[in-house]
């Protein structure tokens, strides 16, 4: 089966800061369709950099990234934008909802960018994350957990093949964090979406099919979720 994401010998160096500026040092990764992967590691280990590179928001210094078999470098900026628009969903630690849009509009935005002006899907997505009736609220009128639910709805509404989640529970308490992860896992399974979660908390482990460990820009310890939880 063709992997959704294939990362081959990726290096990333920021600026000309020598050894200190190297965020990734020859990292390799493959994610299969429908697979939930948790990537954990300490702060500054290069997790978010890898996520940004897979999303095509940043470009590697060296190496190759393929998403659904397409080389991100060869498809150009417009191709990467199109990829984010259609095939990828993004969830952030600080939710990153647009403050001037309501919860519903934030979700609908994803569909509109796709060219699908489907209001029902947006409403359904909100209902699916338990926010029925709260669509008219602005982000500042929602709790942290609710905001993250909107972010998840925004990511899943377009049914992408891969969701990239950067510390999705980092800004939430344990109970809410667990609820969010459960919701995320459930939605991914239901829609057969792959999920790459970046985290440095063990909370994510039990929701992942595979757990990867990143140290100093290299994925060093591939391990299965069941092994860890056992």
């Amino acid at each position, binding site marked *: 089966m063709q992997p959704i994401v294939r990362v081959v010998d990726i290096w990333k160096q920021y600026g000309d800061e020598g050894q200190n500026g190297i965020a990734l040092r020859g990292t390799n990764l493959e994610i299969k369709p429908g697979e939930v992967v948790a990537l954990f590691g300490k702060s500054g280990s290069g997790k978010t950099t890898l996520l940004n590179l897979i*999303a095509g*928001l940043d470009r590697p210094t060296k190496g190759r990234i393929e998403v659904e078999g397409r080389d991100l470098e060869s498809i150009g900026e417009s191709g990467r934008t199109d990829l*984010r628009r259609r095939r990828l969903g993004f969830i952030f630690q600080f939710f990153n*909802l647009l403050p*001037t849009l309501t919860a519903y509009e934030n979700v*609908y935005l994803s569909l509109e960018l796709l060219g699908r002006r489907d209001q029902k899907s947006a409403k359904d997505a909100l209902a699916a994350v338990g926010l029925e009736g709260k669509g008219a609220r602005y982000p*500042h009128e929602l709790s942290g957990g609710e905001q993250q639910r909107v972010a998840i709805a925004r990511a899943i509404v377009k049914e992408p093949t891969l969701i990239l989640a950067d510390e999705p529970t980092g800004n939430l308490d344990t109970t809410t964090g667990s609820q969010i992860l459960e919701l995320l896992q459930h939605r991914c399974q239901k829609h057969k979406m792959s999920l790459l979660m970046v985290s440095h908390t063990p909370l994510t482990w039990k929701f992942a099919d595979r757990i990867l460990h990143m140290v100093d820009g290299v994925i060093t310890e591939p391990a299965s979720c069941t092994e860890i939880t056992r």
Partner: protein
Amino acid sequence: MRVVTKSFLRYLIKRPGLSVLQLLGIACGVAAVIGMTVSARSALTSFAMAVDFLRGKSTHVMERPAGPLDEKTLEKLMLDPAVRYFSPVVDRKIKLKTGESVRVLGIDPFLDRSIRPELSNAPFSETDVKNRQTYVDFLLKETTIFLEKNLATDLGLKPGEMLSTSRGNFQILGLFANPSGEPIILMDIAHAQRLFDLSGKIDRVDLILSDEAGFLPRWKEGYRIQSHSQKKETLLAMLAAFRLNLEALSLLALFVGVFLIYNTTTFAVVSRRRDAGILRSLGAQNSEIVLSFLAEILIFGILGGALGAIIGHLLAHFLVNLVGSTISNLYFFVRPVEPPWSIMTILAGVIIGGGASLLGGFLPLLELIRIDPVQTLSGRTVSRKSRIKTQRVAFAGLAIIVVSIILLLLSFINVYVGFAGVFAFILGFSLLTGIILIALGPAMKWLFYHLGGLPGKVAAGNIRQNLSRTNIAVSAFMIALALSIGLGSMIGSFRKSLVWWMGTQLRGDLYISTIAEIQVPEEFYEELKAMPGLGGIDPYRNVQVMYNGFQISISSIDASVLQRYARFGWLKGGNENWEAVKNGGVIISESFARRFKTKEGDRVTLDGIEGPVALSVGAIFYDYTTEHGLIMMDRSTYIKIFGDTTINSLGIFIDPGNPQRAELLGEIRRKAQERNLPVLTSKQLERNILALFDSTFAVTRSMRFLAIIVAFFGITGALLTLFLERKKDFGIYRALGFSTSQISIMTVLEGLGMGLVSFLLSTVGGTALALILIKVINLRSFNWTVFYYPEWQPYVVTGIVAICASLGAALHPLWKVCRTYPQMQIREE
């Protein structure tokens, strides 16, 4: 509407105070341009209408090169085959009892019918029976006139009533309409000749020629014949420098406006950076983000432009009178019509507002395109990069200043190059603001810590740390303040130069008849000359003549008297320069020398009544009476060349040690009053000239004021943006235990700090601007040297304005702090 666009536009509603400030800022910038342009155009249209109305159907005008012409000329004209129609005209001014000067046209109603039927038919416009009597009265009764309708309305006069003037009372036979709005008194030419002591003389002849080519060679010598288009061009050319300065002033206001738009747009980009990053991560294309942002910019531009057009139209009603009175004072009478309201004004405002917004938003848009989503999403600050960027911008600023210096040095090519240099200098200097803010950071921290304790220290730090916002606000405010100092210093220096100049030229004890419309009878001059004990009398005559196709002024004086009593400011040499004038030579004003590139020893050729006369230039003197150039010669030379013995005014000089001084002055006053001639001391004359000077700069002062208002909105917007963007920080302050009053002090000091830095920078920029305006722009526009006198007033006034404006700008954020601070939370969104 697309959700992406909606997400940007919602900011306008979410931050209504800021939106209103931004809108008002743009509106004021546009209003300045619209107000100035509409009022200048209205004044010039009125002028053109007045010229056309007075011209009637005539094709040419015939005059002596200087002074009135002999009416015997008419006999010869009658026989010239090229002349289809002609009409002799006496064209003078009379002073009404209200103080207003009004044009008096003396015409022959029969001859004038073919030239100006609307005007010359005025005596015949009543019903038949009454008509005959009116016509007879007009021809026979010396004190009968027709009056322009608007003037009659203004004075509350009706036909049959009397009009009081400095030359007696006149019975109004009827009224006539003048579409140009110029108040005119119409009189039979013979009565006008008697009224103005012009027996056998007329001022000009208006002609309808059938054969211009045949006519001109026959009348070449001793006459100035201009086609009406030439005449109009000549008159309009006189306004060239004035118009250029009006245009430059409105452009300066627009410049501040564009800078303000740049300011607000950059703020918007800064606050949208994160949103743009989010949108990019969701797959939005750069073009979609840019278009949404463009929509926001254009909405501001269009709404602000439309609002600005309305304010500008109202402003034009105020400015049109200022512009009109300045033109009337300096050049020729204009009564500008109130600018009519037109939908085109709104359209112009929208175009200017939209265009300025696009121009001002161009760089911020580029920044938006280049936004790195990874950085914005991670919330990473780019402090080191921002410092490097500030340094780069400062280098660019220095480079632009170098370019501006080159442009200013090249301004001899064209004054527009000089103006480009001024704009480049302002732009370049404004780009240095960031680096100066960084440099002043420690000093500001020290000062504010001592002024306001810890909140003061934090305030200084905030100004330094939020450079991307504070830098632009400070530079926009600095530009407006520098304009204020620059224009204020320029006007102050000009005023002092004028005072110095008056001290060199107006050294007489008394001046008789300094009002242009009243002339001094020659026999009165002779009578005074015969009075024993007087040191000297200077019979002054000023006329406008054509020189090399341009209108210039010629003054005739008594060289011996001025040599003895006046202390002219010479470019070279001293009072010995008068010797050349006494020997039939001339002296020229600096403006003439620069305009026609003439120097001492050159010869100037003037068209006299007996053909061209070449005169040697003895010296060049400083002069501010006309920017078009002045040739001064002795009265004897003038009469020989032009045959004109008219005297405009007399300067009376009595030796300071003369024991009969008081009696002599009293006697002269009495004699002048007997002839109804106004008498002024040199001090009174100086006061009048200074009042005139001040009134001519009223427009400049208005623009200076507007620029500050525009910038005020800028700095208020900046402070408010800073406040809104840092709400989370306020939550942190609260958590740390800062009280509401401490936060208030911090807010006020931030405003004050930005105002103070703006002011400090503006003192340097303003002084440089004043020097550029004086040494380059004034010199190139008006061809005269204004001496730079350092003055403290513009700095103090501007400093007070800066402090008040920055404190005023802090009021809104302060109010918000007091109202909402206790509830503020540390929240991300």
